[in-house]
């Protein structure tokens, strides 16, 4: 069991590092391609590693470890300090890091869900202008208009929910806060999520993160995948409204909205990181031209190459 968990961590780290370097060295900028690469890196420890155990149990034997493997974690059991094995320390530190990363995102997620349930009881009428904007944006994105709900709360809320029938939830506070072009851009962003069934993908990622909560690479790859999903929706929204500028302005306003809320010190620091990340996303959106997706065979070649490397890598 422990060796299995260690192997998924090892495979995840190798896959994530390789994908990160391929994306950097190959200058792969298209969010669609980057998302596929990050999902591949995440899939390696989640699907490929257990498949290897099932189909090739001989990989665990010493003949394979000493004769065939590229890397065998048990070779590190030679390194000990006061009777503690170096491999065990590494596994413990990585497991701790994975669990903390998972909790770091799980707690705000659960709070959002709980807060969303409380707000759901208090619905307001849908302004006609908003309904019109949603219909127009959906047409621009060549999709059907999703369902819409407006909460009467003064807090800015904008989220795409629903696994089978997407629902865009917004609030009176958000409609007041954003200028009409910014509101259209923000709505376009959410319609793009609805069109691509991103909530379903988001729940899938959350489920995998929960199952592999101890694996830091799964946590980081899922985060990177979510970042690419958001970038993809930003670009779609910019295309729909004809300019990236209103998308970036709406993002900045939404991110800055909670700035004055009282927070503990670590919460302020985290909010600062989040603001910095959104600012970077806005700058990238305003500065970047539409990147061409990488040829499909690069992903296939990476998957095959990683499969071969990971087959010969044992914990």
């Amino acid at each position, binding site marked *: 069991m422990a060796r299995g968990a260690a192997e998924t961590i090892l495979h995840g780290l*190798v896959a994530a*590092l*390789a994908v990160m*370097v*391929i994306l950097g*060295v*190959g*200058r*792969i*900028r*298209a969010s669609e391609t980057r998302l596929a690469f990050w999902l591949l890196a995440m899939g390696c420890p989640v699907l490929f590693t257990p498949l290897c155990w099932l189909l090739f149990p001989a990989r665990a034997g*010493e*003949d394979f470890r*000493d*004769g065939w*493997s*590229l*890397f*065998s974690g048990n*070779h*590190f059991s*030679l*390194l000990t300090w006061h009777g503690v094995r*170096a491999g065990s320390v590494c596994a413990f530190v990585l497991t701790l890091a994975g669990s903390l990363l998972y909790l770091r995102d799980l707690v705000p997620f659960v709070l959002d869900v709980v807060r969303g349930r409380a707000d759901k009881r208090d619905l307001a009428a849908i302004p006609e202008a908003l309904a019109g904007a949603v219909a127009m944006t959906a047409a621009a994105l060549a999709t059907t208009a999703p369902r819409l709900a407006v909460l009467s709360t003064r807090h800015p809320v904008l989220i795409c929910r629903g696994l089978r029938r997407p629902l865009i939830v917004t609030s009176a506070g958000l409609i007041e806060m954003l200028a009409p072009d910014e509101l259209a851009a923000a709505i376009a962003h959410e319609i793009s999520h609805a069109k691509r069934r991103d909530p379903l993908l988001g729940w899938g990622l959350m489920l995998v993160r929960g199952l592999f909560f101890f694996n830091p690479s799964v946590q980081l790859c899922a985060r990177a995948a979510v970042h690419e999903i958001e970038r993809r929706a930003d670009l779609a929204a910019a295309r729909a409204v004809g300019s990236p500028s209103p998308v970036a302005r709406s993002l900045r306003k939404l991110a800055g909205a909670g700035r004055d809320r009282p927070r503990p010190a670590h919460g302020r620091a985290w909010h600062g990181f989040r603001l910095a990340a959104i600012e970077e996303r806005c700058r990238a959106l305003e500065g970047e031209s539409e*990147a*061409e997706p*990488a*040829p499909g*065979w*690069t992903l296939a*070649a*990476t998957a095959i*190459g*990683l499969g071969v*490397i990971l087959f010969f*890598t044992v914990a």
Partner: protein
Amino acid sequence: MAPGRAGLAVLAVLGGTALALRAADAIPGFLLSVPRGVHVCGSLAEAESRTGLRLEALPRGLGDYQPVAGTIRTMAKPAPAVAVTLRGGTGNETELTIFRGRGREISALLRPPLSAFHEIEIPIGPGRMASLKAASTANGPVLQDLQWFDGEVTTALRFSGRTVELLRLARRIVGDAQ
């Protein structure tokens, strides 16, 4: 993005990953001078179960010579073999390394070759001859290497003490086996 650049990036990164993993795998062996394929065992019983060679009787027949922790090493391929270093004798400073392996050869990974300046055949038991080599080490002292084959298993002793003592130990081992 040029497809060529992406292809090169994929090839270079995957190749680099494989090399990096292989290099990382060699680190513990390099730090502890344990070559790949060699296992360090915690006890003679563990080494016996890994190799299927009889070992536990060895130190029992050697008086005050006792295995040094961390020096029991085994190999599974090309043929099962084991090396164990014992320390004992006057002042507890004399080192004896026992090698035992199936077949006529013991891998050089376990038993580093010596360039002998002298080699003779010498009897160590009834009808049993062994080859005794003497070699000087890099820092001066002479090492003696005594090896015999019993038709299935090769046993070798490498010793830093006196020849008389080495032959006494060899005869104890041969006598024990019989």
